[in-house]
C-alpha cells in the first residue's frame, strides 16, 4: 500500500523520462528490419482473411466479418507490439548489464518506469497507426466513407485516445513480464499471455456469439481489457452492418458516445491496476532492494519474529518482540555489535531513539544475556 501512496506522489524527472523515451525510439527506428517484418503479419491477415471468410460464408458475409475483424486485427497489433516492443529492450538491457546503468542513476524508480512505458507505448502506437493507414488506403479496412473526410477526422481523436490507452496497458504487461523473466523464457511467457489476451476477448469473436452458445462466458471476456479496446475501436472504425457498433453502447440505447465513455472508463481501471503492477514489479526488479520503499524489507513480520523467539521464556519473548518491532534487523545487528564491544551507552541511545523506555532497555539487556548464555551452552553440548 505504501507503494500505492508513493506512486501518486510522483516528482517528474522530465530529463530522465525524455532520455529514456529518446533511446527507445532511436533504437526502434534504426532497426528497419524489425519494423518491416512486424508489419507483414497484419498485412497478410488483411489481405487473405477477407476473401477467405467471404468464401466460407457466402456473399454478404464478407463485409460483415471483415467489419468485425478489422478492429480485431488492430487490437492484435496493439497487444503484440505493446508487449514485445516494451519488453524486449528491457530483456536486452538486463542481459547486457545495461540495466545497472539506469538502476544506479539518481532517478526515482517511478520515473524510470514511466520512461519505458511511454517509450514502449509510442512504438506500439506508431505500429498500429501504420496498420490502420495501410488498411484504410488499400480499402482493406472497412470505413464508412459516407461520412467523408470530416467524419474520419472526427473519429480519429477518440480512436487515437483508445489506441494510446491500450498501448500503455499492454506496455505495462510487457514490463512486468520482462522484469520477471530472461531472454530464454521470454517467448514462452509472451505466447502464454498474448494468446488469451487476443482470443478470449471480443476482438476476434463477438461476445454475443459466445454468450449465445455458452451462457455466462461473457463475464470471462469482461476480465480482458482487449474486449473493451476492441469495442471502442469498432465504434469508430467499421461495425456498420448488422452488428451493433458498440457493445457498451447497447446499455445506453445505442448511444455510441456513452458507450465509448464506458469503454474508456473500464480501460482506465485496467490501466491503473496494470500501471501499479508495472511500477511494483518492474520498478522493484531494478535492484534487489527496492530503494523506493525504505524500511519495508528489513522489518520482519510479527509471525516470523514469533518463530525466532519461540524457545524463550515468556517475559524474554515479550521484550524481544517489542524491541524488534521498533528496530529493524540491520540496526539490531549494530546494537548487538556495540554491546559486544562494550559500547552499551551508544547502543542504549539507539534503542531510546527508537522509542523504548529505560526499563525496556534493561529488560532487553537481561534477556540478551540469557539468550547468549543459552546459545553458548548449546554450542558446548554439540
Amino acid at each position, binding site marked *: 500500500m505504501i507503494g500505492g501512496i508513493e506512486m501518486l506522489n510522483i516528482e517528474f524527472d522530465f530529463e530522465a523520462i525524455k532520455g529514456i523515451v529518446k533511446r527507445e525510439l532511436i*533504437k526502434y527506428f534504426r*532497426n528497419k528490419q524489425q519494423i518491416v517484418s512486424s508489419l507483414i503479419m497484419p498485412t497478410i491477415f488483411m489481405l487473405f482473411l477477407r476473401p477467405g471468410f467471404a468464401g466460407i460464408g457466402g456473399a454478404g458475409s464478407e463485409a460483415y466479418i471483415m467489419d468485425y475483424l478489422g478492429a480485431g486485427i488492430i487490437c492484435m497489433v496493439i497487444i503484440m507490439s505493446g508487449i514485445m516492443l516494451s519488453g524486449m529492450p528491457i530483456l536486452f538491457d538486463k542481459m547486457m548489464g545495461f540495466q*545497472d546503468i539506469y538502476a544506479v542513476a*539518481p532517478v526515482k524508480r517511478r520515473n524510470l518506469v514511466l520512461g519505458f512505458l511511454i517509450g514502449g507505448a509510442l512504438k506500439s502506437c506508431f505500429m498500429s497507426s501504420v496498420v490502420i493507414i495501410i488498411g484504410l488506403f488499400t480499402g482493406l479496412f472497412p470505413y464508412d466513407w459516407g461520412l467523408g473526410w470530416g467524419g474520419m477526422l472526427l473519429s480519429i481523436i477518440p480512436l487515437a485516445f483508445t489506441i494510446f490507452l491500450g498501448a500503455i496497458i499492454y506496455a505495462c504487461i510487457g514490463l512486468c513480464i520482462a522484469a520477471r523473466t530472461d531472454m530464454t523464457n521470454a517467448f514462452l511467457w509472451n505466447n502464454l499471455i498474448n494468446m488469451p489476451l487476443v482470443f478470449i476477448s471480443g476482438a476476434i469473436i463477438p461476445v454475443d456469439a459466445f454468450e449465445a452458445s455458452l451462457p455466462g462466458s461473457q463475464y470471462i471476456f469482461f476480465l480482458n481489457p482487449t474486449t473493451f479496446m476492441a469495442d471502442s475501436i469498432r465504434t469508430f472504425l467499421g461495425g456498420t452492418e448488422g452488428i451493433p457498433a458498440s457493445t457498451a453502447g447497447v446499455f445506453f440505447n445505442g448511444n455510441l458516445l456513452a458507450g465509448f465513455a464506458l469503454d474508456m472508463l473500464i480501460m482506465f481501471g485496467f490501466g491503473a491496476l496494470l500501471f501499479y503492477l508495472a511500477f511494483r514489479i518492474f520498478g522493484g526488479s531494478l535492484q534487489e532492494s527496492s530503494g523506493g520503499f*525504505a524500511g519495508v524489507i528489513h522489518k520482519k513480520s510479527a509471525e516470523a519474529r514469533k518463530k525466532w523467539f519461540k524457545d524463550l521464556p515468556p517475559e524474554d519473548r515479550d521484550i524481544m518482540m517489542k524491541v524488534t518491532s521498533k528496530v529493524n534487523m*540491520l540496526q539490531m*545487528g*549494530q546494537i548487538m555489535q556495540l554491546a559486544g564491544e562494550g559500547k552499551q551507552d551508544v547502543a542504549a541511545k539507539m534503542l531510546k531513539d527508537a522509542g523504548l523506555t529505560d526499563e525496556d532497555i534493561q529488560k532487553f539487556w537481561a534477556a540478551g544475556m540469557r539468550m547468549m548464555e543459552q546459545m553458548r551452552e548449546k554450542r558446548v553440548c554439540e
Partner: protein
Amino acid sequence: MNNENRIIKGGYLSENEYIVEAFNLTKAWGDLVAVDHINFEIKSGEIFGFLGPNGAGKSTTIKMLCTLYLPTDGRATVGGHDIVQEAEEVRKIIGYVPQDITVDGRLTGYENLEFQASLYGLKGKEKEERIEEMLKLVELGQRADGLVDTYSGGMRRRLEIARGLLVEPQLLFLDEPSLGLDPVSRKSIWEHVARLQKKKGKENFAIFMSTHYMEEADRLCSRVGIIDRGRIVALDTPANLKKQIGGEIIEIDVDSARIKRAMKRFEKFGMEDQSNRFIEKINQVGDSTIAIEVKDTDTALPKVFKIASENNIEIQQVHMRAPSLEDVFIHYTGKTLRDEDASDVMGFIKSQISKRLRSL
C-alpha cells in the same frame, strides 16, 4: 519510517568524515558467501583500491555499495546514507563504471553519453560541453557519431569510462577500469582523474576501485585492501603493506618441469627445520620462477645455492629485489595474477562473449 532514519543518522556509524563505511557487510547466495562480514572505511579524498583474485568478491562489494545488490547481513553507509534504506540519497553522490562493457551497441558514442547525461539531469550547454570534453579525453571525438557496435573492444571500454566520469560524482566506483585499455589511454584517464580531483577539491572526491594492475594500485591508491574469498586479509597503504611482509625477495629460475620438486626441497631445508630456518615463504610466480621471501639476502643467498647444489637443482637465473605489491598479494592470497594478463584485450572480449552466451 522517519523515526528509523533518525536512528541511523544519529547512530554509531554516520556523521563523520568517512565517505564509505562498511560494517560486517555480507552478501551470500545460498551457501555461496561472496562477501563475508567485511569492515572498512574510506575517507573523502582517498583513492581506495581493492585487490583480489577472481571471484574474491570485489565486484559484489562494489555492487552492494552502489545499491544494486541488497546485503545479506551487516550494513554500509555511503556519504552517511544507509545503502539500503537511503538508496536514493546514495545514488545522488555516486558514479559507477561496471566491470563488464555495458555501453549500448545500437546507439552512437555521443548518444550513449547523452543518455547518461539525461539520467543525471545534465542539460543544455553544460551537457554538450561535458560530452565533448569526455569524447576528447578518451579520443573518440572522430568516431562519436558511429554506432558503438562498430567500435573496437578498447574503444568501448574508453567510452564506458567516459560515461562514468561524465557526471563528476563525489564517489566514483571503478570496477577494474584498466581492463582492456592500452597504456596511453590508461595514462590519459588517470591524468583526468587527477585533474578532476583538483577541480572538485580533495575532500569532495574519492575513488573506490578494484584492479588487477599491481603497479597501478601501488602508484595511485592511498590505501589498498586485499580481499580473498570474501574476506579482507590485509588493508593499509601500499608502503606499509610492503613493509609488513618485510625482508627481500630472491627470485630463481629453474627448469619448469622440475619446479614443484624444487619448491618442496626449499621448503624442507629452508623452512621446516626450525634451527636454521631462513625462508619466510615460498611462492611460484611463473612457469619456471620461484619467489623466496627472506629476511636478509646477504646471508640467505649462499644458503639458497647450497640447498640447490645439494639437491641437484639447476638454477638458471637469480634476481633479487625489494617486495612489490604483487609479492604482498601473493603473500596473502597464495595466488599470482600473471596467469590472467589484463592487457589482453581479445581475451577479455572473448570472455565477455562466452559469458553472454552462457547466460542465454
